[in-house]
Each structure stands twice: as C-alpha cells, then as structure tokens.
C-alpha cells in the first residue's frame, strides 16, 4: 500500500505533460462537433426556407411557418456568434434547436404546399369551367338577340 502511494507522485509527474494534449483534443473535438452542428443547422434552415418559398408559390398561407422559421434563424445566429466566441457547447445547443425547428418547418411547408396545390387545382377547374360556360351563354345570347333583332329590322323595312 505504502509503495503504491510512493508511486503516485511519479505517475502524476509522468501524466502531467499529457493533460494539455488531452484538453486540446477535447476542445478540438467540441469545436468539430459545433462546426458540424452549425453546418447541419444552416442546411436545414436553407432547405426549410426553400420549402416555404415553394409553399408560398403554391399560394399557401405561410405566415405561421415564417414565424417559426425566424425563431430557427435566431437560434442559428446565436450558434454562429457563440462559435466565434469559443463557446462550442452553447453553439451545439443552439444549432440543434435551430435544426429541430427547421425540420418541423420544412415538413409542415411540404404538407401545406400539397394542400394549397390541391385547392389551387380545384379553384382552377371551377374558374375555367365557369368561364367556359359563361362565354358560351354570352355568345349564344348575343347571337340569338342579333338574329331576332335582324328579323324585326327587316320586317319594319
């Protein structure tokens, strides 16, 4: 037991130089993790934005989705700033939050786009059919009225 205790200071002296290496490796790995999390959050945010843009083009109401997307954007900005300040754990946390919200927005935007597209198609058909019937009625009405008028006109002459 006492010999073990005597060995302890020697062990500490031997291991001491490896501590900075260990710390720098931990730091490098958390920097890498933060970098990865931020890249993923940026990609998710961009794809969520593109999905919202498509939903908007399909005439969907995207204002609620935009509110959420902007929350994801705030978290992403926070992650960028914390990364630059060297707070890698904080950066990972906020990038993760941004990714989660971004994914939700992307999925909801996809569903909203399909619904909006379906209702747009239904609206398109009703407008086209309505206009077609309307034009036929107007043209026939004008034609019949013209014929009646012409007959009366020549009768009067």
């Amino acid at each position: 037991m006492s010999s073990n205790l005597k060995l302890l200071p020697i062990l500490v002296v031997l291991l001491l130089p490896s501590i900075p290496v260990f710390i720098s490796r931990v730091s490098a790995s958390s920097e890498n993790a933060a970098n990865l999390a931020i890249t993923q959050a940026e990609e998710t945010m961009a794809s969520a934005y593109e999905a919202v843009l498509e939903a908007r083009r399909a005439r969907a109401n995207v204002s609620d989705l935009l509110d959420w997307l902007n929350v994801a954007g705030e978290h992403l900005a926070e992650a960028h700033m914390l990364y630059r300040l060297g707070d890698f754990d904080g950066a990972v946390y906020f990038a993760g939050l941004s990714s989660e919200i971004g994914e939700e927005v992307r999925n909801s935007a996809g569903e909203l786009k399909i619904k909006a597209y379906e209702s747009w198609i239904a609206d398109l058909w009703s407008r086209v059919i309505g206009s077609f019937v309307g034009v036929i009625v107007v043209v026939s009405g004008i034609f019949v009225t013209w014929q009646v008028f012409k007959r009366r006109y020549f009768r009067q002459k």
Partner: protein
Amino acid sequence: MKPMKLDEVRIIFLVAGLTLTLIAASPALSLISLPRSEESFSELWLLGPEHKAENYPFNVSNMTQHRIYVGVGNQLGYAAYYNVSVKFRNQTQQLPNSTTSEPSPLPTLYEFCFVLLDGNMWEAPLIFAIEGNSSLIQNISINGMVFPVNCTSTWDSARNGFYYQMFFELWLYNVTSSRFQYHNRFVGIWLNVTG
C-alpha cells in the same frame, strides 16, 4: 331622329358581345399573372433610440449603453432570406466596396438571420456598449453578448475626436448557389469615443 343603319347596330352588338365575353371569361383570365414591372430591391436602415431617424448615439464613453434599431424592407417580389452582419472598425479599416459588391473583410460580431415576405419589413433593437478608452476599444457588448475587438484609433484633428464606426451589412441567401451573398447594402454610425 334618323333610324340606325344595320351595320351600325352590328358594331354595337359586336362591342357589347366582346365586353360581355371578357366579363364572363374574367375568372379564368384572372389566373394569368403578369410579370412584375416594378424595380425589385431591399432596404436597410438604422433608427435612433426613439425609433426616429435622429438622436443617433455619437459621443460614447466606456460601458455606457446605447440603443438603436436596425431595419430591413423586402421589395424583391419574393420571400427573402436575409442576414444582417454587425461589424466594427476604426477610420483606416475597410468598409464594404459598393463598386465591386465586396463585403468588408472585417469579422462579423453580432448577426441576425430572418426570412421576410415580399412587401414586409423587419426591425430589431440593438443595445450596445463599448469597453475601453478613446484610443483602444477592447470589447463591444451587443444585446448582452461581449465581443473582443481590440480596435485602436488615433486622434482625428480634422474632426476633433477618436472615431470608430459600427456598420451593418445586408446579405441575401441565393437559392441557385445555396449560399449567402453580400447584397451590396450597408449602413453605419460613427462613434466618437470620449474618456
């Protein structure tokens, strides 16, 4: 009154017929969207503490808080994804180059990321304080976050002060290239650091 000729009545019928046909076809015609003819652009502005374009912070001292507002307007014709980068410089450091559309090479301190619908505007408060003295600013705190800047300035005898500038660059996400691009717009405020 002279009675109308048949040809004249025919023209009236034709005009009335065409008008009524256009009215009947209007639901379908409304689906045709004409291309936007207006100029598309983005706006970037700064407002003072009272939300007006006046009383901007100018004479600033160590650890005194100041409030301004930064705003963006989207007139691009589509929902745009913006980034506003906040940067800090002395009189000799580079500003963005408006001719070559290059952003300033200085590092971004604070930033905002947001998506804005066409025709809408966005605004956010920015509370800042500097840490240091007139010739050396060590840190700048923005909305509660402290950023090391270590920025030096020399006495400007022409304008009687130690001048620094906080400026805001507008970046726009490009869907085609899948990255943010400098949108060639920036605004800034000059700060005369006293004490």
